[in-house]
């Protein structure tokens, strides 16, 4: 027999209760995921503190390096005839060793690299070698890259954090965030300037 309208109405009410329960379950899931996002965010903030600290110590050590280099540059007689003579014998060995390594390991054309290396060695002074200038320049390059990586990640996170802020606003979750700074975008780290400009060092 056909089902009456009244019965259809009752069945709709029954079915809606189930849907209602499922929506509530979904909202409970959202709350659990939100808690996990909050935890991850707390861990992120604490990492931020450690990054700041490591950056400060790195920059202090780089400052000390700069001071020592400046004093060494000022001290007399560093680049004397002996060092210059040694440098003239050191360069060909460096070039030969480097080109052998490059051909064996780097697996790409070494023509241009050889010419660039020749120019680099002729432009450089033994002083640069003597103070480990290559290691300082590697550090500065990495400092630059690290700053860039951090900026990009912060920018990304801040944009997502603003949206999550709105997403998790109180209308879904009665609990007010105690920490109104929740997801607060942290300031970007002031990127340390490059203390030594690499080019000026080669001239020496």
């Amino acid at each position, binding site marked *: *027999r056909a*089902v009456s309208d009244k*019965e259809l109405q009752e069945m*709709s*009410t*029954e*079915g*809606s*209760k*189930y849907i*209602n329960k*499922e929506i509530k379950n*979904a909202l409970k*899931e959202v709350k659990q*995921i*939100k808690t996990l996002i909050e935890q*991850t965010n707390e861990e992120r903030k604490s*990492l931020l503190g450690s990054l700041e600290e*490591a950056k400060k110590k*790195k920059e202090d*050590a780089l400052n*000390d*390096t700069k001071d*020592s280099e400046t004093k*060494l540059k000022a*001290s007399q007689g560093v680049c004397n005839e*002996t060092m210059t003579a*040694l*440098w003239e014998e050191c360069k060909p*060995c*460096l070039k030969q*060793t*480097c080109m052998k390594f*490059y051909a064996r*390991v780097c697996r*790409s054309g070494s023509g241009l690299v050889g010419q660039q*290396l020749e120019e*680099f060695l002729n432009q450089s002074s033994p002083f640069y*070698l*003597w*103070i480990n*200038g*290559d290691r*300082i*320049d*590697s*550090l500065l390059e990495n*400092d630059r890259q*690290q700053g860039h990586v*951090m900026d*990009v*990640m912060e*920018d*990304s*996170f801040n944009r*997502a954090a603003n*949206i999550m802020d*709105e*997403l998790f606003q109180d*209308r879904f979750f009665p609990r007010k965030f105690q920490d109104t700074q929740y997801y607060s975008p942290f300031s970007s780290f002031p990127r340390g300037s490059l203390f030594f400009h690499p080019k000026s060092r080669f001239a020496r």
Partner: protein
Amino acid sequence: NVMPFPVLEPLNFHDMFQPFFDMIQQAQQAMDAHMHRIPYHFPMAEFPGENISDRTVCKEIRHNSTGCLKMKDQCEKCQEILSMANDSSQMQLRQQLNTSLQLAEKFSKLYDQLLQSYQQKMLNTSSLLKQLNEQFTWVSQLANLTHSDSQHYLHVSTVNSHSSDPSVPSGLTKVVVKLFDSYPFTVTVPQEVSSPKFMETVAEKALQQYRQKSRE
């Protein structure tokens, strides 16, 4: 009372959940944006004195040749330069420089490791947003479909069995329902399933079909 959220006025379900889907997507895209913009090889992976990665040296040789100076240890005359010092004050200064240089390298490596952990937190947040998306998008999309003020989230329009509709295989009951203002779903339930399990089975199947479709 089918009102899901006592805090809500009658059925502002649409306003409540409709924006959710877009916002999760936007948050996920914002979070993933950095993945395509930064070199994943964190620069300070290795250091001189450890097995610096050949890739790093090759890169430095190509970039500005400084990578070649890392081979000074293999050249005797270069070693002699490194051991030169005119007087004790120079020796001391150079020692200081090397000490601060090692310290800077140590903290740069630490910073690199922390950066990688930080990036992992970003990835974790991104995957949680993805989970959020999977768990909740169907509600948001349902809200998208809700226009009328019907009191029902699930609306049964017809119920047929083989006796009232010969096209229905015998032993089955065919129910046509809509979720909010969605397109109609046809759900079949074995006849032995009786109330109140019956409507729960119908609703469960309808929701499964809907969520499956919304994932697609």
